[in-house]
């Protein structure tokens, strides 16, 4: 029985085809801009296929390869987030690469391949599909992180990310082996059925598997205590790649974590939930405390990405009910405001991604008022001020945690997000109120300006009208597709 439903994986397929086509074309005509445009079209086509699947979602579970590749509501929601993030990352790269002589032709195809891996990971209905997607995504990002050939920081980032990423996938794969030993299957639905059945007696292997899988995916989502690589890698990689990593990789890893939490992690003995709880609480604390002491804005955003992983983790406890809906909303808001912030930074920094300290943006409001306003909007939203997208996102995840009885960790989340206001506001104060006469030269770029403008508008719109996007992804109870 071969069950192949091409439409279900058309979004990922269109990205792969576009990557191959643009590699082939650029063999004859070395033109990176052309491949950027092909990539953008491919992302649009993938989004169109995704929309088609989304409109058909009421007609039952759409799947392929016998429930190994799903196109259910969670997968389609996360797919939209990934495709938006990819499009924004491509636009940020468009002029950035050319100005720094980084515009080798393989850049955009690698980014598309990585995004296609993320789509596979999100759609995975089983552990083997998950690990395949994870590797397709990660292998391309390892190369992108080391993209700047003559920069020690970028090479260090690539090497560190590669070694730690491979180490983490080894844990994940060993965890999958243990889970296979416990349940005799790789499919989420079968695992869930086996774990919750009465005669389940291999609890030892299942617990071991849960811990190993948490370690493996904890690395990818940059959760404490596996977050140390994140600030270094995010700082060392070129700016658009950092944006891509903090958006796409995080979304895909969280999507996988949600499915795993819904299918068996939350049904394990309660100390597994407690381990997860401690990880999340410490992620929020460490991420925000780390952000407080940074002077480099890029590094500050890296710590902010760690802290946001903690907030997203709060929704994990509600993975069986409203958690995924809240996470899709949070990730949409996060992707847009984060892309905006990185886009602003990519205009400010010099050739080597330096000159992004607080002093360097002093007086930006005088020389470039529009840019300063947009940057302030993103920082306010990241901090979680009302009327911006980030605020609604935080409300949703805190609500999800509190409804499921995790009040203490939600309170820790609220306190840390108040502390975080300090470091998010510091650049705003410096931009507007610090008197200097330094001349800030920004590098004009049409594509990046579009990203900043769109992101600023959407950040505000999502903050004022949160309901429509949230309502679209009503999940009901069925997160794990039962055959």
């Amino acid at each position, binding site marked *: 029985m071969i069950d192949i439903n091409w439409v279900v994986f058309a979004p990922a397929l269109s990205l792969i085809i576009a990557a191959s086509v643009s590699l082939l074309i650029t063999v004859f005509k070395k033109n990176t801009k052309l491949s950027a445009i092909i990539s953008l079209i491919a992302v649009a086509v993938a989004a169109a296929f995704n929309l088609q699947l989304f409109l058909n979602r009421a007609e039952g579970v759409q799947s392929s390869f016998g429930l190994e590749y799903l196109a259910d509501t969670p997968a389609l929601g996360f797919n939209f987030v990934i495709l938006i993030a990819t499009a924004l990352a491509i636009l940020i790269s468009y002029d950035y690469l050319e100005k720094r002589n980084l515009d080798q032709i393989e850049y955009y195809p690698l980014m598309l391949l990585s995004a296609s891996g993320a789509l596979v990971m999100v759609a995975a209905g089983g552990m083997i599909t998950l690990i395949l997607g994870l*590797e397709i995504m990660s292998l391309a990002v390892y190369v992108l992180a080391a993209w700047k050939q003559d920069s020690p920081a970028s090479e260090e980032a690539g090497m560190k990310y590669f*070694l730690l990423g491979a180490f983490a996938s080894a844990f994940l794969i060993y965890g999958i082996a243990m889970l296979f030993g416990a349940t005799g299957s790789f499919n989420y639905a079968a695992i869930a059925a086996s774990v919750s059945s009465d005669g389940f007696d291999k609890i030892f292997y299942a617990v071991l598997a849960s811990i190993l899988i948490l370690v493996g995916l904890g690395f990818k989502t940059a959760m404490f205590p596996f977050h140390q690589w994140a600030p270094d890698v995010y700082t060392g990689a070129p700016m658009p790649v950092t944006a891509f990593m903090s958006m796409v990789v995080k979304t895909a890893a969280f999507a996988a974590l949600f499915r795993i939490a819904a299918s068996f992690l939350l049904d394990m003995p309660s100390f597994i939930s407690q381990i997860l709880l401690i990880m999340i609480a410490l992620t929020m604390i460490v991420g925000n405390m780390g952000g407080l002491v940074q002077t480099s804005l890029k590094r500050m955003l890296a710590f902010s990405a760690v802290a946001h992983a903690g907030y997203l983790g709060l929704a994990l406890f509600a993975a069986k009910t409203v958690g995924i809906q809240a996470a899709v909303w949070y990730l949409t808001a996060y992707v847009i405001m984060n892309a905006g912030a990185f886009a602003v930074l990519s205009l400010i920094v010099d050739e080597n991604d330096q000159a992004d300290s607080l002093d360097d943006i002093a007086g930006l409001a005088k020389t470039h008022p529009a840019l300063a306003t947009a940057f302030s909007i993103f920082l306010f939203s990241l901090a979680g001020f009302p009327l911006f997208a980030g605020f609604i996102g935080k409300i949703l995840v805190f609500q999800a945690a509190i409804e499921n009885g995790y009040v203490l960790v939600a309170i820790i989340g609220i306190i840390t997000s108040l502390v975080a206001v300090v470091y998010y506001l510091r650049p705003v104060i410096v931009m507007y109120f610090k008197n200097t006469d330094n001349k800030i030269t920004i590098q004009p770029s049409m594509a990046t300006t579009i990203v900043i403008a769109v992101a600023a508008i959407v950040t505000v719109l999502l903050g004022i009208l949160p309901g429509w996007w949230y309502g679209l992804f009503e999940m009901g109870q069925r997160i794990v597709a039962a055959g």
Partner: protein
Amino acid sequence: MIGTEYYIALSAIIFSIGTVGVLSRRSAIMVFLSIELMLNAANLAMVAFARAWASEGALAAMNGQAAVFIILAIAAAEVAVGLGILVAIFRYRETTELDLLSEMRL
């Protein structure tokens, strides 16, 4: 027939050796090899479990064995990319010592 738990114990030992290797070795190549050891430990566990599940039907056993091949392919792909990055770094610095790769600090 040797019991499944012996195979799992062996694979756990190999996995631990690999983990210790990753954490203690200084050369990137040796770290790399240790990661391969960890992946092979997972393969050994999977084959052992596949044999144990064979009594439940051929499908479970086949699943486990097929997964091993997929993981072998993943390991090979990782080697290709990893060695590529390693060569790029070596060309620039003429060393693979990881301690020298830590210019960035908090």
